[in-house]
């Protein structure tokens, strides 16, 4: 057993004491994953790779928990001279790689967008940006802390889950040469990039990490190398490339307004500056592409062809959160403007429309994808509302969504490897075949839709924050109903079976089970701690009577969290008792109009033949089918974006 380089690194850094502790943690969070990725790529032994991944995940988890804000103003500044050219250099490398990819796959759009980015970047870097940048390189506030912990904890667990998953995946795919080294290298690289993205306070660095996640996403989507995978990966690349270009334009505009690249500084400085609204709106558009908001949802849906850990990590829990992170980071800059109103409406529309489209889906992963898009829309809308309560709600939503959705993806992935399908109808009755995975999936769904769990708490806050904006409120109400519908349907479908016997959890590798159980526990525990979290997430200076007697109180309402949890716990105990009594009773077959056979779901049909009674859900394609509605929904969404831009220009 070799000592991992990451491990030695961490021991080394932990030995550094005092004020540089935070800096050490930052290094661990951002730099170590890159080295771990390199190690994965070089060491082709499966066991070693597993060890590297586990060690990195553990290290990131610990570091993210140890990280505390706020930072000293000069944090990392002494390395600025090293970091800055390094990142600029990498930026060129990155753009060059993307340009090469565009040429190689003969995708003119990618070539064009990358060339545009290159040109603009050269101009900015060499002719516009001043060299003297005397501001904090990193930013550790509640927002970035929330995201870092999501990335490291949820992301780490997903990486663990990926170890046995990819093993099985390759057995099924059976490629000539194992592609797992690249896969895990990319996953770890991505974790580092994501940490960098949320921790940096430097807009140009942010751009680098932004593009780096795009590249990771492209490579991971195309992992299986099938035609479909490559097509979808290229779609993701050009859409996100467009986002990068827009981001660069935004940076240029913002720099033009206040000559800074300090993100927090910019957000504060541009507040109330009408002229800054146009670059800010470009920034939001970039964020929209990254978060796959309508009308850019196509790449995220296509990304679902990737192995499920990719979908869980990049395309639901973390990377797509980069967009909303950007919006939330700059929310103070455009608060209470027409742009903010436009953002709220565009986000609200995405929430509603994506939820509606999810109803029409029978591909489980696509349902999850639409639901992700929908929830991100809600978070964007929160950024648009811009009140402290709404921003805190947004952070709660990010957190709870990442945990529950990541968990659901892992469940679907685990199930998919058993039943070899993502079709909800094939997953029907999963709870009988794979009781543990199935029940955890149902629990995950419940944490998304039932109080007292976190998502509902977040949604409640959004309801209260958004009630002043009528159109948005109606969108919210409709969207929530749609959301409820597809989730309950999914959970019900997983439950559907005639099993009366006791459940025996299926056998599965520890590394598959641990993340599932850990995330499930996390979802429950987080919900319990929601009032505390909410109190912490609120920006300083605001006084909210949070957490008195477990009742979360706002100006216009109250949420008795502890009471509801007590009821839920009591119910759980009672249910255990009730279920065991019911199962001790007589075995029953379902009502099949009296024509039952000796099999639980078969009845005697015409010609005395046994027929299986089956049910398929109604997906109502005419009302909710994506084939029919995507175009119209996209047009409407584009309309909302135009309204948003118009709002920016008008003022």
């Amino acid at each position, binding site marked *: 057993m070799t000592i991992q380089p990451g491990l030695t690194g961490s021991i080394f850094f932990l030995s550094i004491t005092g004020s540089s502790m935070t800096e050490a943690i930052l290094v661990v969070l951002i730099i170590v994953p890159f080295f771990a990725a390199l190690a994965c790529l070089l060491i082709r032994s499966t066991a070693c790779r597993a060890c590297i991944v586990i060690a990195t995940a553990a290290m990131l988890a610990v570091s993210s928990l140890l990280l505390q804000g706020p930072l000293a103003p000069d944090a990392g500044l002494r390395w600025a001279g090293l970091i800055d050219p390094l990142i600029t250099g990498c930026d060129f490398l990155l753009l060059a790689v993307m340009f090469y990819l565009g040429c190689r796959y003969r995708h003119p759009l990618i070539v064009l967008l990358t060339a545009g980015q290159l040109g603009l970047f050269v101009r900015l870097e060499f002719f516009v940006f001043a060299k003297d940048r005397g501001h904090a390189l990193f930013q550790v506030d509640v927002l970035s802390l929330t995201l870092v912990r999501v990335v490291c904890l949820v992301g780490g667990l997903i990486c663990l889950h990926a170890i046995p998953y990819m093993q099985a995946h390759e057995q099924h795919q059976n490629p000539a040469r194992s592609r797992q080294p690249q896969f895990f290298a990319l996953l770890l690289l991505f974790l580092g990039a994501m940490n960098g993205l949320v921790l940096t306070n430097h807009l140009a660095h942010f751009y680098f990490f932004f593009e780096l996640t795009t590249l990771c996403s492209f490579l991971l989507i195309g992992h299986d190398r099938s035609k479909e995978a490559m097509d979808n990966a290229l779609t993701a690349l050009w859409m996100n490339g467009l986002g990068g270009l827009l981001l660069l334009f935004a940076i240029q505009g913002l720099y033009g307004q206040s000559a800074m690249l300090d993100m927090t500084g910019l957000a504060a400085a541009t507040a109330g500056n009408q002229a800054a609204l146009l670059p800010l709106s470009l920034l939001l558009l970039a964020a929209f592409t990254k978060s796959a908001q309508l009308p850019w949802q196509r790449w995220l849906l296509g990304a679902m062809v990737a192995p499920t850990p990719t979908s869980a990590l990049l395309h639901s829990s973390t990377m797509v959160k980069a967009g909303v992170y950007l919006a939330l980071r700059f929310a103070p800059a455009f608060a209470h403007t027409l742009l903010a109103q436009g953002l709220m409406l565009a986000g609200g529309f995405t929430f509603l429309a994506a939820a509606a489209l999810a109803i029409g889906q029978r591909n489980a992963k696509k349902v999850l994808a639409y639901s992700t898009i929908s929830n991100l829309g809600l978070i964007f809308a929160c950024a648009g509302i811009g009140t402290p309560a709404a921003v805190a709600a947004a952070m709660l939503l990010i957190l709870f969504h990442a945990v529950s959705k990541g968990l659901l993806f892992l469940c679907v992935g685990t199930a998919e490897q058993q039943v070899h399908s993502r079709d909800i109808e094939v997953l029907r*009755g999963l709870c009988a075949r794979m009781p543990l995975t199935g029940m955890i999936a*149902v629990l995950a769904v*419940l944490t998304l*839709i*039932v*109080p007292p769990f976190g998502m*509902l708490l977040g949604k*409640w806050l959004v*309801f*209260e924050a958004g*009630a002043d904006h*009528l159109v948005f*409120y*109606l969108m919210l*109400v*409709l969207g*929530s*109903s*749609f959301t*409820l*519908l597809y989730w*309950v*349907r999914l*959970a*019900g*479908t997983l*439950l*559907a*079976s*005639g*099993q*009366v016997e006791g*459940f025996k959890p299926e056998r599965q590798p520890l590394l598959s089970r641990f993340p599932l159980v850990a995330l499930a526990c996390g979802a429950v525990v987080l919900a319990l701690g929601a009032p505390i979290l909410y109190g912490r997430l609120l920006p300083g200076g605001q006084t909210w009577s949070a957490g008195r007697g477990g009742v979360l109180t706002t100006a*216009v*309402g*109250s*949420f*008795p969290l502890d*009471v509801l949890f007590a*009821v839920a716990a*009591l*119910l759980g105990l009672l*249910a255990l008792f*009730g*279920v065991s*009594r*019911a*199962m001790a*009773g*007589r075995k*029953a077959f*379902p*009502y*099949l109009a009296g024509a039952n056979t000796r099999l*639980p*779901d078969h009845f005697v049909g015409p010609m005395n033949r046994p027929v299986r*009674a*089956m*049910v398929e859900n*109604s997906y109502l394609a005419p009302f909710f089918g994506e084939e029919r509605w995507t175009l119209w929904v996209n047009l409407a969404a584009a309309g909302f974006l135009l309204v948003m831009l118009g709002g920016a220009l008008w003022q």
Partner: protein
Amino acid sequence: MQTTALALAVLGAALLLGGLLSGLDRRLTARLQSRQGPPFTQPFFDVIKLLAKERMVTNPWQAFSPLATLSAAACALLLFAWQGDLLVILFVHMAGGVFLVLGAMASPSPYSQIAGQRELWQMLCCETLLFVMAGALYLTTGSFRVSGAAALGEPLLYRLPLLFAAFLLALTVKMRKSPFDLAGCHHAHQELVRGVFTEYVGPHLGLLEIAHWLEVVLYLAICSLFWATGPWGMILLPLTAFLAVIVLDNVSARLTWRWMLGWGWGAAFVLSAVNLFWLKG
């Protein structure tokens, strides 16, 4: 301790009221059908009998769901009694519906599974309207707390007439009466046998019946918000609504869920939205 006793008292009163209302419903329906009908206490006998019957489940989840539905209904009612946040009340109440559907869909019987789907469409209609109503409450009183309605000084109905019409639709759906009793009305001569309740047996069905009483009481309580200026209004308006729904049930055939989703709900949603804009504008 005092709180617990009070909560139990509230629940007891609600149970009594719910049972009696159910008895009133059956008797009144019988009268409208030229029959004498059962005694008012009939629902209590029904439930006691059900609770003392044999337990049979086709899926363990069915033993859990009724408990969850009942506790959600009880919780929502208590929150209402404690003048809680209408949004939270609705969320909790909705959770009851979620568990009802999950229990129904967990059974392999196609009847209860299809009914589970229909119940979802129904929830889509009802819950949306109620949440719009919560928004209206906020717009008129500046708070989501139900206590706001009483503090307003004039009946909410004056400001929300269209929303009240929409609310009646939700009430009809919730009371499982035609034209919207898509699944599981009491006299179940319909294609889905007894809808979501088909597979619940004995005690589990009894618990759901109790949960249904509590839900009806909750809906009537919400209805009372429309005239919360004094005890008379708070009693008479829900009672009138209750009777109106029973009469409606007896003068109409059952419509299909497609109709409900298209016309019924569409119209109600537009009405309530119009009311909301009117309120704001």
